[in-house]
């Protein structure tokens, strides 16, 4: 149990062999938040998109067809689970694979959209997600090579120096996976329908971003 003046004391830990997940007040709140929004995605029905027909008084409301809806919900739940894993993971490599799963499920959520503009944005975002895996896992590999370990518990407190470039690569990787730089593609992606599911894209990316801040200050 480490007690650094960053996020408060570690409350409890769940060992999975060499990967020890831990909860501090900070990561616990992030985890609960991810769980809350996953529950919202499970419980709530998608909204109907209201729009006007040009030149008339009519208003139409669009509903997502069943299969699309089911797939979006499935992906949103997977995204929530990945975000939950990333928020409490106590191992850098494990965090990285949860993060890349977040990136992939985000693409899955919008994949069912029929809107060409949204799909174009999602395509660009998907390319960034794929590129981002290089700095992400590169950062983890540099950490392993220079320190000999991957466990955040061992690295915490700055007892073992983690090189700056490894941290920079990790941040860059998370930026690519979660919140593409400058948000342009993400903003276009959120035009897709299905509020509770689309919201998971935003939730997961902000949570992994918050987690990487904690990790790079801790190690």
């Amino acid at each position, binding site marked *: 149990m480490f007690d650094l003046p960053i996020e408060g004391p570690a409350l409890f830990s769940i060992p999975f062999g060499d990967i020890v997940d831990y909860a501090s007040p900070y990561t616990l709140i992030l985890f609960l938040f991810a769980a809350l929004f996953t529950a919202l995605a499970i419980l709530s029905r998608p909204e109907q998109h209201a729009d006007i027909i040009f030149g008339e008084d009519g208003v139409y409301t669009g509903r997502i067809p069943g299969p699309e809806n089911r797939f979006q919900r499935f992906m949103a739940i997977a995204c929530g689970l990945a975000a939950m894993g990333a928020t409490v993971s106590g*191992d850098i490599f494990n965090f990285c694979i949860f993060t890349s799963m977040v990136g992939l499920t985000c693409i899955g959520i919008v994949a069912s959209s029929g809107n060409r503009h949204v799909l174009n944005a999602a395509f660009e975002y998907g390319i960034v997600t794929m590129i*981002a895996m290089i700095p992400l896992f590169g950062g983890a590999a540099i950490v392993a090579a220079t320190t000999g*370990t991957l466990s955040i518990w061992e690295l915490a407190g700055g007892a073992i120096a983690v090189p700056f470039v490894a941290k920079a690569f990790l941040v*860059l990787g998370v930026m690519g996976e979660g919140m593409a730089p400058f948000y342009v593609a993400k903003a276009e992606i959120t035009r897709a329908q299905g509020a509770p599911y689309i919201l998971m894209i935003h939730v997961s990316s902000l949570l992994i971003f918050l987690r990487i801040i904690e990790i790079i200050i801790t190690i």
Partner: protein
Amino acid sequence: MREREIREGHGSMVSRISRFISDFDNLVPAYALMIACVALIGLLTLPLLTYEPDQIYPKTLNPSSPLNPYDRGGAPFTAAEVHAQYPENAPYIGYVTGYLTPLSRFFAATTQYMGTTIVAHPGGIIDEILYYTRGLDTIVETSILFVAFAVASFLYRRREE
């Protein structure tokens, strides 16, 4: 000239940058530029990085073994020397170092390339470190594959309709 001004704008520096980042076609170049900058810093600081010889998962490569990259030594079901970050979480560490299914034993006996097929056929090698001390990793990795297949099959089936 004028056409270019209309297309690219002639506002302040801020509005020029804004215009550039508001087009998602520029997303990949912008991100690639950021990676290139950090990679450059990485290259410049490369002499400062030192390899830590005391690795958590040490490994010696034995090119003559058919299980080459995955061979941890030792006979299956007997204790072998395997490291773990938290040995207290792994009471039975080292007891299964490389279990081969009959099919993979056949491959290992006849060819040199068993190690390359580990992800390509089921029940290849149960790598002690991979599957025992870092079990969560392997679960998430397969989940990623599963999600990727789900997205791909969904898109494929939608095109069929």
